[in-house]
């Protein structure tokens, strides 16, 4: 697949819009998946997909074949998602100033002890709780965690893509896992 994409990149660079279409068709679903996991909602994820390809198109000349095209696209999508999450967060902070802490704590509103763990594991409450737990992560933690956990990138690669370095990335992932454990451990119970 990457070989095909490589050829398409070269053709797209020289102005071949069919080649760029191929790249869009090849990568859009994966970018949507990444964007949804990072932003947590469909509307923002669609925004990220659109914006990622627009930015990629504008910056095709800057793409260096040292990394794969998909890694380069992921980098654009992750950075844009980060901007979007931060912007949303700022906006929500402004909105929520004044509302009570209880109103904001979604996790508290989800019961954890009524149905048995086996049933819960596949139930919608688990999904809600996982989403809520992911929403509790900072933008940096969520990005680093999603790229490591769901997309399987190495800590080194993530540090390079986000421009934060391996050490800071590692600590973002540690903090993310710690927070997730705190939120989800009552659900799965001690092993």
């Amino acid at each position, binding site marked *: 697949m990457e070989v095909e994409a490589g050829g398409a990149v070269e053709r797209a660079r020289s102005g071949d819009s069919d080649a760029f279409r191929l790249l869009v068709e090849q990568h859009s679903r994966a970018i949507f998946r990444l964007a949804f996991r990072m932003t947590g909602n*469909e509307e923002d994820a669609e925004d990220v997909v659109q914006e990622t390809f627009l930015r990629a*198109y504008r910056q095709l000349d800057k793409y260096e074949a040292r990394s794969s095209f998909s890694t380069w696209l992921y980098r654009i999508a992750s950075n844009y998602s980060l901007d979007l999450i931060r912007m949303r967060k700022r906006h929500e902070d402004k909105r929520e100033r004044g509302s009570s802490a209880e109103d904001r704590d979604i996790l508290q509103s989800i019961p954890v002890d009524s149905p048995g763990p086996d049933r819960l594991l596949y139930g919608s409450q688990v999904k809600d709780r996982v989403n809520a737990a992911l929403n509790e992560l900072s933008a940096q933690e969520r990005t680093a965690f999603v790229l490591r956990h769901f997309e399987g990138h190495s800590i080194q690669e993530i540090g390079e893509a986000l421009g934060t370095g391996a050490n800071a990335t590692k600590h973002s992932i540690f903090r993310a896992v710690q927070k997730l454990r705190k939120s989800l451990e009552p659900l799965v119970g001690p092993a």
Partner: protein
Amino acid sequence: MTSHISEEQFVLFYYGESAEAAGIESHMAECEACRSEFRTLQLVLNTVDSAPVPERNGEYAKAVWHRLEKQLAGRKRRGFMQWWIWAPAMAALVLTAFLAGRWSHKNDPQVATNQQIRERILLVAVGDHLERSQMVLAELTNAADGKGKLDISGERQSAEQLLGDNRLYRQTARSTGDTAVASVLDDLERVLLEISHSPSEVSSDQLDELRQEIESRGLLFKVRVLGSQVRQEESKPVSEKEIRKL
């Protein structure tokens, strides 16, 4: 490995990034507490995998391309003579000429006229820059509110292009000690950055946020005032003008 395994060691081990994997494995083989701790971590992280991602069908990629195609077609039509292509290069050229003249012939009366001409060119360039910036700010401030999303890709692209020029002018103003101009350009740069980082389509909430950013700094007014001062300066005959800092 004699002491218990830390949470950080477990996380790296779980993701296959631990440099001490063999030591951790052999420790866990003998330590029930650490085995149990690792199982809990596995359960939690496996549970995270249950977070659903909405399905996108086979037609999705085509739909994405369909939406993109319109925007890309707009971009392709833009030709060489669009201002945002040549303006940054021109701004850099004018600034270089201006600064070169300022520093290398400071006390030479023979080059005074050349310097005045350079300053005039720079004033024209700054005037244009402020006018273009004003247009972007005014378009966003006056954009119609709606329930749906508003396409600001044009303003965003303009802001991106204006940023480079703005940086040059701000640095020049700062280095020549014109703090008032530098301060307005500083505020302008922050807002241009915010606009250029915005999505192509914004919701009314996002648009409000941008407006507040512009209005809280009184930026549109400041840019208008500065622009009109620059235009007045431009309109003076060269001979009447003092050699002054921008």
